[in-house]
């Protein structure tokens, strides 16, 4: 073998080794948790009287939908990660088709499950301390004696008798719902690891049998009504590939 050929072989081998090394090296990137809002599996369209009353006559529209997600934690073979001050207001009226929570740069492949609570845990719900997106002067605050709405849904229904306002403000301490979901990257870009979830609003009106929005057009401070909507929390968010 000539000297030149040897040099070429060494270079190719080095490049191959470098490639293997880079491939094996965990991708430490910021993680983007992206939440896509749906109604019955279809992307949410705001302010459009297009959805069927789940348990009765008439069509409904969604004017505002937002909710709190708390205490995000990742677990897996690579260990545990607990996001500090983790109180997130998720809303879907922005310019993007999803709402995002960003986690710091980590190797996403070290984790296989994500855990959080839908709503605000009782301790945080009982204070007026500003942590994360919790703010006693925001729209989600009921007042300091009651705490936060966990889910805010406002809209309207139209049936043969005309217009009916819809107001579902749900959140007592007992409605706080911890949830665990599989955690896997949906996509990688040069800058971040993207993990996707869907939020199906229809789950709120189906858990305890289809809700007739005409007979129950609002849920606020009645605990049984709140529990009926909150029964849908475990089915609202799903991991999506």
């Amino acid at each position, binding site marked *: 073998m000539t000297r030149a050929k040897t040099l070429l072989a060494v270079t190719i081998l080095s490049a191959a080794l470098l490639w293997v090394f880079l491939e094996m090296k965990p991708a430490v990137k910021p993680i983007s948790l992206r939440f896509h809002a749906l109604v019955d599996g279809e992307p949410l369209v705001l302010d459009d009287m297009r959805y069927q009353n789940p348990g009765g006559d008439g069509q409904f529209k969604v004017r505002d939908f937002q909710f709190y997600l708390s205490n995000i934690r990742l677990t897996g073979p690579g260990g545990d990660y607990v996001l500090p001050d983790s109180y997130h207001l998720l809303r879907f009226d922005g310019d993007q088709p999803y709402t995002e929570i960003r986690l710091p740069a980590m190797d996403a492949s070290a984790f296989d499950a994500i855990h959080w609570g839908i709503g605000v845990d009782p301790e945080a719900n009982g204070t007026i301390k500003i942590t994360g997106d919790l703010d006693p002067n925001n*729209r989600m605050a009921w*007042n300091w004696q009651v705490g936060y709405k966990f889910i805010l849904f406002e809209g309207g229904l139209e049936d043969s*008798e005309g*217009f009916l306002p819809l107001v579902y403000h749900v959140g007592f301490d007992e409605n706080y719902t911890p949830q665990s979901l599989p955690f896997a990257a949906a996509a990688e870009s040069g800058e971040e690891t993207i993990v996707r979830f869907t939020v199906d609003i229809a789950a709120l009106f189906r858990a305890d049998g289809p809700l007739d929005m005409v007979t129950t057009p609002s849920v*606020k*401070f009645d605990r049984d009504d709140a529990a009926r909507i909150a029964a849908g929390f475990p089915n609202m968010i799903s991991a999506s590939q």
Partner: protein
Amino acid sequence: MSKKFVIAALLLAGGAVYFLAGMPRKATTPLADFTVPFVYGHFQVPKENPLTKEGVALGRRLFYDPRLSGNNEISCATCHQQALGFTDGLKASVGASGVPLSFNSMALTNLLWGPQRFFWDGRSVSLEDQALNPIQHPDEMAQDLDALMDELAEDETYKALFDTAYGGISPEAVAMALASFQRTLVSANSRYDQYLRGEISLTPEEEKGRKLFMAHPDAKVAQKGGNCIDCHSQFLTSGFSTALDGFSNNGLDGEDGLLPGLSAVTGKAAHRGFFKTPSLRNIAVTAPYMHDGRFDTLEEVLDHYDSGIKDSSTLSPLIVEADNQPLDRRQRGQISLNLTADEKKAIIAFLHTLTDEDFLTDPRFSNPFEEEAGDDAR
């Protein structure tokens, strides 16, 4: 020079500008005695315009100086008078042209919190951006900015103040100074604040009004509510700061009479008739009320919310739904809070606890020219 080098040099220069913009100016002093109640929450002062003693003092002087107007007769304080919670007591303000404006003078209180969009329709995204608009508006102060710069440069006091605070006279410096002064207009010693701090008790009527203010009604659990908190946050009593939550249609006009409001800014039909929810701090001294000053008294305001709401496609469902009625007695198409006369009176009593005499008479917010004249006379 290689392309890479040029890019690197540009990045470095950009970084330096960014760094320097955030630096306090050489001769300025950070505002030392600026404290705010924790219940008001976080606030942000733009990095490029930190609160300094010199900037605030200059802003206060400019705020009260009629030379900011084209005819040298109208200052910011003409329409924003301290004793009236920085409003002017008029239905619609009248400026240089004598033509009444379309809108009611907005109170200037606790501007660091609540919606960080200014003007009733939210068209301005910062106090700096807002400040130069009234100065140039032909019906407000009708001033030419170049002419104003010349006028200010002829005044040795201004020259020195601008040099110290902002390194020279410019329209941007005028805006920054006015914004700084306005950020210091914090009202936090009303009877409501004293109550929140545990220093006093409210009277039974005020307490009844507070409870009504702070509640969305739910007849199912026998909770009466005045529904105020659905738009006015519990401590600040302002609109909400998140996204555009601090703007709403509060039923002043029906479908045909809806003004563009926020939709002129966002281009969204869903925002027609949306206006900024103002802070209710010092509300008892800021009559007349609403964006167009249509109501003279708080009684009229309460009557509006109780039984005067006009329906439209962008009216909040929270207003329509809040009827204090059990479902079986609800009648579609009828919008009313169904409050009693005593309940309305109680809410008004609570609104009076938001008056902060210290704020309305605080010498730090008063006319510095009068202060100087007083000093000269002594």
